[in-house]
């Protein structure tokens, strides 16, 4: 199963995700985020807008590659991949 690594910044709002390994079924990035949201309800509101698109100042990487489809999150997350969720460096 793919794993998910989350910026510690988000532990403040979702302490249930801290100090644990997050493994979810393989699928699209959207499906993986939905699975994380089931573990921590409300999580997707922090990384996605109400259209389901990635927020402007959030980055997702599959292993060390940026996710390409930021709008519908259709990139596939393979079994052995890690999805990294972190804040974009937006200056300041």
């Amino acid at each position, binding site marked *: 199963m793919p794993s998910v690594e989350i910026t510690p910044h988000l532990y403040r709002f979702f302490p249930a995700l801290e100090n644990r390994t997050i493994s979810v079924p393989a699928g699209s990035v959207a499906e993986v985020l939905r699975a994380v949201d089931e573990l921590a309800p*409300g999580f997707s509101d922090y990384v996605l807008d109400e259209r389901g698109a990635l927020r402007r100042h959030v980055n997702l990487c599959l292993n060390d590659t940026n996710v390409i489809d930021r709008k519908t999150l259709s990139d596939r997350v393979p079994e052995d991949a890690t999805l990294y969720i972190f*804040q974009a460096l937006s200056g300041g």
Partner: protein
Amino acid sequence: MSNMILLGTRKGTVIFDRSNSAWNPRPIEHAGIPVCYAARDPRNGTLWASLDHGHWGPKLSRSRDGGMTWEDVLSLKYPEGARYIVKYLPTPDFDPEAPVGQPEYKDATVFKIWNLAFGTAGQPGRLYAGTIPGGLFVSNDGGDSWELNRPLWNHESRGGNLFAGEATSENRWGGTPASIDYGVFEPGIHSIVIDPRDPLHMHVAVSSAGVLETTDGGQTWTGRNRGMLNDYTPNPESAWGHDPHFVAGCPGQPAHLWQQNHCGVFYSDDGAMTWKKVSMPDAGVHFGFPVAVDAHDGRTAWVVPARADSERMAIGGGLCVARTTDGGQSWQSFRNGLPQENAYDIVLRHGLDVSGDSLCFGSTTGNVYLSEDRGETWQCLGHHFPPVYTVRFG
């Protein structure tokens, strides 16, 4: 007499409590998170903060225990199909004579929850929220769920009902510079004035469109900008395109409304049917952001004058608060207790409030001042707060 003041600051929510005659700040809440509005619902004591997360999107935070604990309210979202016509900042090669092209549409998402307003005592669950990109949201259950007010969103001044299809009219709403931090140039609703005697009667103010009124609970809206002067545009008396910085009403005399904007201070004593410019530049009263109105006397209002649109700072390095008690025919400036040299503070649109004889304002320089004699003398509540976006008595 209010015993609480809430500050929304760039680094969180600061709550002051009055203890005997002293005002004491609590440790900051929402530490590190910009808070663009914070207020207490006078009907049930619930505290609200609008969080302006840099990365994680706008969120409402609510406390039902006086600020001991807070919870996220994640339900304020644009519905599927909510669209608007995109505006762009004019570029150097902008040609005003060029033919108007086809409108460009964009799906709406919330960029900023700019302010909140609480319904009348007869509507205990009713809340309103104004957003960038220009949607008014309504809750009837204390904020658990929110619904976009579609008649305002679909207003003909904005292109008509884009849920249904193509624009049927021109979009007359501009963008507010306050939206540029989000990478967009969209309008925003920052003022919501509810008539305490008639909950179906409201005014909202939109940056950059103007003031709109409803008398049927939001089913229909009418622009109320007659008398407004946009003195920097080709048609200063245009029906739309005005940029109110803030609009406030008198609860006891709801026909009395005040507006501070780029081009002066404006006053209406007929429910915004007509506005009168009541600035006195010679007295320093012209440009600024906030305005506060007495709860009972609609002719009495306060502003915190700033130098000019092009120089957004205190006038002559000294802070003052100006008060009128005659509907803007005359203004009196008060400086006692306020710094009179090396002050560059600016007070933003939600940064001044009045409660009885007390007034409080906070500046982007992190200074907070309180008056308990209707603005005539001031005491400092602290010099080192984060930049202050909003001040509200609780």
